[in-house]
């Protein structure tokens, strides 16, 4: 996992609320046994028409979305199934941060483990941001601030442990495995 500290990138918006993981990546693409290359299936049912052609009405197929790395999405993003294929697909497509008024629990957990930053903002800030999609915003995880195209700064909260892992590009397994003694003691007590 690459460390994530700060970056500046173009934004794009999918304003619908409750975007579930079946929309982010439909289940028929979950038969693979690897996690690479799933970006091609991201939002597949919205992105492609029934004959497999790009749907010109879907925002990711429009010129303004090209190169966008920040996704502004509606409330309760990532609800539904626990599939980590959802953040895998978003990251593989090129997204590095999702901005919403709230996230589903499992999605948020899965996202940070893959270097994808979930940023929660208030409804007012969300409204302001939606007026300037397409513009470049900067994300600063060191100071936990999102800076929009007008220079407005919005602080955001993130679990301190997830933040540390993201900043260091560190995966959580090493941290867990550093508890060998505690785990052994627990097992001894329990048996």
């Amino acid at each position: 996992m690459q460390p994530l500290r700060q970056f500046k990138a173009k934004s794009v918006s999918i304003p619908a609320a409750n975007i579930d993981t079946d929309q982010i990546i439909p289940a028929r693409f979950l038969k693979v046994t690897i996690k690479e290359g799933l970006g091609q299936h991201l939002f597949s049912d919205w992105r492609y028409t029934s004959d497999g052609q790009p749907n010109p009405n879907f925002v990711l197929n429009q010129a303004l979305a090209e190169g966008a790395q920040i996704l502004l999405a509606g409330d309760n993003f990532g609800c539904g199934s626990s599939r980590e294929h959802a953040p895998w697909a978003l990251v593989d497509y090129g997204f590095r941060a999702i901005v919403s008024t709230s996230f589903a629990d499992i999605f948020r957990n899965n996202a940070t483990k893959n270097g994808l930053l979930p940023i929660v903002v208030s409804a007012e800030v969300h409204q302001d941001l939606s007026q300037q999609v397409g513009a470049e915003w900067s994300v600063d995880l060191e100071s936990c601030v999102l800076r929009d195209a007008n220079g407005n700064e919005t602080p955001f909260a993130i679990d301190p442990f997830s933040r540390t892992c993201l900043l260091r590009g560190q995966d959580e397994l090493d941290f867990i495995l550093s508890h060998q003694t505690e785990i052994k003691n627990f097992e001894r007590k329990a048996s």
Partner: protein
Amino acid sequence: MAKTLLDKIWDQHLVAPEGPDRPALLYIDLHLIHEVTSPQAFRLLKSRGLNVRRPDLCLATADHSVPSSQAEADGRRTYVDSVAEEQVRLLGQHCAEFNIPYHGLGSEHQGIVHVIGPELGATQPGKTIVCGDSHTSTHGAFGALAFGIGTSEVGHVLASQCLLQRKPKSFAITVNGKLQAGVSAKDLILAIIQKLGMHGGTGYVFEYRGSAIEALSMEERMTVCNMSIEAGARAGLIAPDETTFQYLHGRKMVPQGADWDRAVEKWRQLFSDSDAVFDRELVLNADEIEPMLTYGTNPGMSVGVTHNLPKYPDPNHQKAMAYMGFEKTRALTEEKVDVVFIGSCTNSRISDLRAAAQIFRNRTVAKGVRALVVPGSVAVKKQAESEGLDQVFLAAGAEWREPCCSMCIAMNGDQLQPGELAVSTSNRNFEGRQGKGGRTLLASPQAAAAAAINGRVTDPRLFLEVGHAAATSV
């Protein structure tokens, strides 16, 4: 200090406590595994040269990608494609490599992961249970803290038998009164999700309690806990009681003899203290609940079968109505149904099949309707066949298929065609969940069977000789 059931289970599993800068490390007693969310985790383990710490605490089965069609004459099963077949093969290989108990196709214990766990008695009160699957909340029906995790976390649990977690908040959902005749556990949970909305439960663990919950059978409790996640909750819990112990007694993986008595003694301590404080509470009355169906594109959008569809100006509501093609629909009972699916980890157990069969018996599926009945496990299938339920379904013109997730998730080729309308006993009505362009109405097995017979959405009480039903139906 007074403790909730959640507090008690949580405290008993703390390997390392939570701090401001770190989540708690929680010990996991049972790790359920299926083919879809595990291959990348096993790959991670192998790439780092790690072993599975406690294969004896794992239990694997194949359910999502396996076919529901019968075996060919030579015993082979025909998969939807080679990718699905490879995924299932790989699960078998990984389980063999790491010594994990695996109930794949051909095993008498194969089935949907959330059906076989309880059936085998692997699911027990007070356990922490995880699976790379959001409907792991099902197992909370036994008073186990059970929740879905992502594939990275599947890897963590395989390697360490532990999980990093922040403690969720507690939410008491008290259901007083009694479910009326013809109203099922599915209707109850749909009504709860309707009240809370799709993320009213985010960050919480539900504890269902009250007279209506206590009166439920274990299978009904599983239906309720199963859909906790659809209101955003991490997990759903029901304190274990005599109903729980009776269900578990004598099952394959529960303690036997004196150990059983000791276990029950321990399990009896698993309840929320009477003065325990919950972070949130909701109280509702079961008497007021009627058969429910969803009409929109998330499980929170549901309506009583005798009611007209609500109309809201909200753009998300409008979007859902446009997808469903219900802009002009007054009531769901106007809608012609193309497919009926009875199955999934929500409603594929023997009592669900009995409830459906009661309506199918001596009746015929309406012309033009495809009805599929997919038992949740090999054991459920055998039991149903021994009771002759398969013959009831087949005589009515429904399909009797092999155990798996089937059209709940449409990974194995069982799917809706674009535009088709299904009444389904599964748990998600998201756009395209049952096949691209397909439209899903979630309902109880009774309501699904009634729709199959009438060819349109129908109040199941009409078929059940429930006194007042005729008066309230259109």
